[in-house]
């Protein structure tokens, strides 16, 4: 703590606000962006078994992930206060046909403020 205080004081005295922001000659910049880890599991409401191959996406965003053999999914997105997460059965009848589902997730301020923000969703889909 003391060490950082001294560093910041001297950095500040250098009359620059960017003393601690740098990148190596040809490396990427540092990452000060905020993001949110969305993870969870999708199961059949009827059987309780995990469902593979469900497309999980965020409305108006290009990112998506597909559930694995355990029905699990996980991806980072830009931090949002509210996110509509869409669950879509993209393989149709290949492993039973499930109804699509949209879930509106409101992220609590305490989660948004934390350095490593994440939410976990347990989702059940009904057979079509």
């Amino acid at each position, binding site marked *: 703590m003391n060490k950082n205080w001294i560093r910041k004081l001297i950095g500040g005295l250098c009359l620059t606000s960017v003393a601690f922001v*740098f990148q190596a000659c040809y490396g990427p910049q540092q990452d000060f962006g905020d993001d949110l880890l969305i993870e969870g599991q999708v199961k059949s409401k009827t059987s309780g078994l995990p469902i593979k191959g469900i497309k999980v996406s965020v409305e108006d965003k290009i990112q998506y992930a597909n559930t694995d053999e355990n029905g699990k999914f996980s991806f980072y997105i830009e931090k949002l206060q509210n996110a509509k997460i869409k669950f879509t059965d993209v393989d149709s009848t290949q492993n039973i046909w499930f109804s699509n589902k949209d879930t509106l997730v409101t992220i609590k301020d305490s989660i948004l403020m934390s350095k490593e923000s994440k939410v976990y969703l347990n989702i059940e889909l009904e057979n079509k």
Partner: protein
Amino acid sequence: MITMLKQALFRKFKKNETKYHELNYLFWECTTRCNLNCRHCGSDCSKDSFYKDMPLDDFLKALDTIESPSENFIVALTGGEPLLRKDIELCGREIRKRGMRWGMVSNGYLYDSEKHISLLNAGLGALTISVDGLESSHNWLRNNDKSFERVDIAIGLAASSSRLNFDVVTCVNKRNFHELEEIQKYLIRKGVKAWRLFTIVPIGRAKEDDDMFLTNNQFTKLMDFISESRTRKDIDVKFSCEGFVGRYESKVRDLNFFCRAGINIGSVLIDGSISACPNIDRTFAQGNIYKDNFYTIWQTKYELFRNRSWTKTGKCAECKDYKNCLGSGFHNWHGDRKNVLVCHNERIEKYM
């Protein structure tokens, strides 16, 4: 007077940073395989690398030795071409699991829409892509006729993401020097917000090729171009941290020159060597993750990086700017270490 005071304060800042040497930035040379055969490659990379890709678990063992990573700590994946690794997303996710951030340097050739999404999903936060000219000069340097077409797609995707801290780097050489204005316009059209320019050091494949190196006149004009471009609001243009540029110091970057290699920047190289930036002469390696504890090496070694007095030799011995420069970028010391490879300040002063 104010300039001298600012320089003195900045020297104090550098001294203090050197004393504390907090590890903020770790390169991981995760592969030396490459899908291109660039004329300027400092690593002499090729499709069939002598080294196999470093197994992820080996790197993670080294990463896990870091006690309390610093607040802004980032792992920078580099190569070779990192996208040739099939497990690149897994690498990123494992880094994020440890509460750390990760970024990547890529030539963009394999960066398509699908890859863009999978990398963002894996928590990619910073990305640098190389654009070395308009189509003809880029393809010439990259030695590949489709390279520009592919990188054009890549930068369009990367620039569209508000999550990514994305910038473009350009190696300025004799062939693309006259295109800088046009490259800048092109990047602005593509939505790129940050552009970093650097020159080529005579190492690796580049050293025998005269087309790679700017004349003193061109180098000084490059400084003028960057200086003028920094008044623009639509793109942040800067010179890389490759060396001290004397009278242009406050005009071409956000911060005065400070080579942080071995002070805030470390690396794990393809063979397990522990060093700083990957373009630094490999004889400066401080240890090896296969026999040493990475973080112990970081904390206890790196003497030549943290005390640069040994660089006061050759043309640096009598230089009046030495105290602000400290021997230029560390990557400028190769071979017998008797003289700096490139002195940017000297090039400028010879032209003036």
